């Protein structure tokens, strides 16, 4: 299919030439990106730029989770959506934009609210019951692969030594598991406290790094959780804040470009982890103040031994995750309708 020795097709070499030229990134960085899979939870203010840049840079598989519809009052900051998509699902609008920027990557739509009942499956497994065409196509692929594997195995059976049997079967199993293991990296681009706890816990349970961004008013925050022995969200915030301290953009407002900046920085951190370049923002937190144009990057605590999610004696299992009541824990609903604005 015209792939050259470095595994990149001529079209890819042309498309990603500015990345390939980079001494600190190069062919290996791009190959890592193309082999990676990243899930962005939330296609709103943070998700818009994060998704566009992740699609453009060549992440192999890009997933989008959102249950909302595009509204006119999103348009001031959610630049991935166009006016023609008003009233339609954000996931559909965002996926279409990602594909129009880069048709060579796989974009997966998860048009549903993230809940404890589906988070583990969305983050880690291939949902064969998805109503997504691409998903069905991949399931077919998978069944085909299993059949092919057995056929090959049977045909070469007389030729191989008994000891090698297990190695071959193991390799086949791993290659098949690849189709099930869903996302390497999770990007939290959501807008409320219970979802943030839920995403972090799910990442801890599944051992996935989490790129977490937040923006409100004229400020933004960014860090990487659960990466390489670093802290998780609960290590920093073991007790949820009072509900009065959990303002949302819909209630308190946000300058559109502030989540834009944080979302771009989230894409950068996810790219660095996926491509294995540079030092991700783990154990550090970026604090952004738009009005005064001041940015602090501060050192934060490491993993807490007492953490209920990731601590030494923690037994936070998949089963416990499924049963945890995040709305009750934070005294905040996972999703609510915005307040009406009276001017």
């Amino acid at each position, binding site marked *: 299919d015209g792939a050259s020795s470095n595994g990149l097709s001529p079209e890819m070499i042309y498309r990603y030439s500015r990345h390939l030229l980079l001494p600190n990134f190069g062919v290996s960085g791009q190959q890592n990106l193309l082999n990676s899979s990243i899930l962005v939870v*939330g296609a*709103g*203010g*943070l*998700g818009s730029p994060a998704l566009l840049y992740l699609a453009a840079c060549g992440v192999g598989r890009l997933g989008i989770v959102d249950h909302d519809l595009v509204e006119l009052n999103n348009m001031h900051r959610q630049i991935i959506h166009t006016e023609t998509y008003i009233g339609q699902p954000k996931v559909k609008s965002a996926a279409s934009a990602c594909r129009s920027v880069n048709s060579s990557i796989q974009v997966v739509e998860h048009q549903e609210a993230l809940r404890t009942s589906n988070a583990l499956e969305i983050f880690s497994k291939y949902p064969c019951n998805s109503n997504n065409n691409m998903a069905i196509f991949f399931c077919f692929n998978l069944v085909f692969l299993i059949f092919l594997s057995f056929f090959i195995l049977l045909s070469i059976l007389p030729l191989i030594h008994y000891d090698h049997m297990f190695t071959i079967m193991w390799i086949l199993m791993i290659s098949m598991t690849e189709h099930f293991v869903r996302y390497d990296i999770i990007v939290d*681009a*959501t*807008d*409320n*406290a219970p979802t*943030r706890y839920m995403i972090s816990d799910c990442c801890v349970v599944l051992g996935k790094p989490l790129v977490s*961004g*937040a*923006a*409100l*008013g004229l*400020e*933004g*925050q960014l860090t990487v959780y659960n990466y390489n022995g670093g802290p998780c969200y609960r290590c*920093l*915030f*073991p*007790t*949820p*804040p*009072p509900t*009065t*301290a*959990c*303002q*949302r*953009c819909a209630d*308190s407002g*946000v300058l559109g470009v502030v*989540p834009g900046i944080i979302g771009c920085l989230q894409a950068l951190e996810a790219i660095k982890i996926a491509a294995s370049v540079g030092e991700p923002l783990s154990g550090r*937190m970026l*604090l952004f*103040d738009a009005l*005064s144009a001041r940015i*602090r*990057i*501060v*050192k*934060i*605590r490491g993993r807490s031994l007492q953490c209920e999610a990731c601590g030494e004696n923690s037994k936070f299992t998949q089963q416990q995750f499924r049963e945890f009541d995040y709305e009750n824990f934070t005294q905040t609903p996972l999703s609510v309708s915005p307040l009406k604005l009276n001017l």
Partner: protein
Amino acid sequence: MQLTLEFGGGLELLCDSKKIHNVNVEQQNGEEKLTMKDLLSWVRTNLIKERPEMFMKEDTVRPGVLVLVNDCDWELSGQLSTSLEEKDVVVFISTLHGG
């Protein structure tokens, strides 16, 4: 003792919407060193103008507030027992959840 105190993530609303406060905090009871515990009670008395429960809970900051002494999480320097020095910068920032 000259200190720079910064409030962010909405906490500035509790002290006249002013983010940066250059303050002079005197050690009490003739004690030699000033700790974060002393500073917290000083802030509560002198800077917080409304809703103190949005800043403190019992004798420490409320859940969801990060405290940074010279750009470093106070968990790394001993939390309430962190002792402060001349010209230190202490940041109180409320974590954001929006997007």
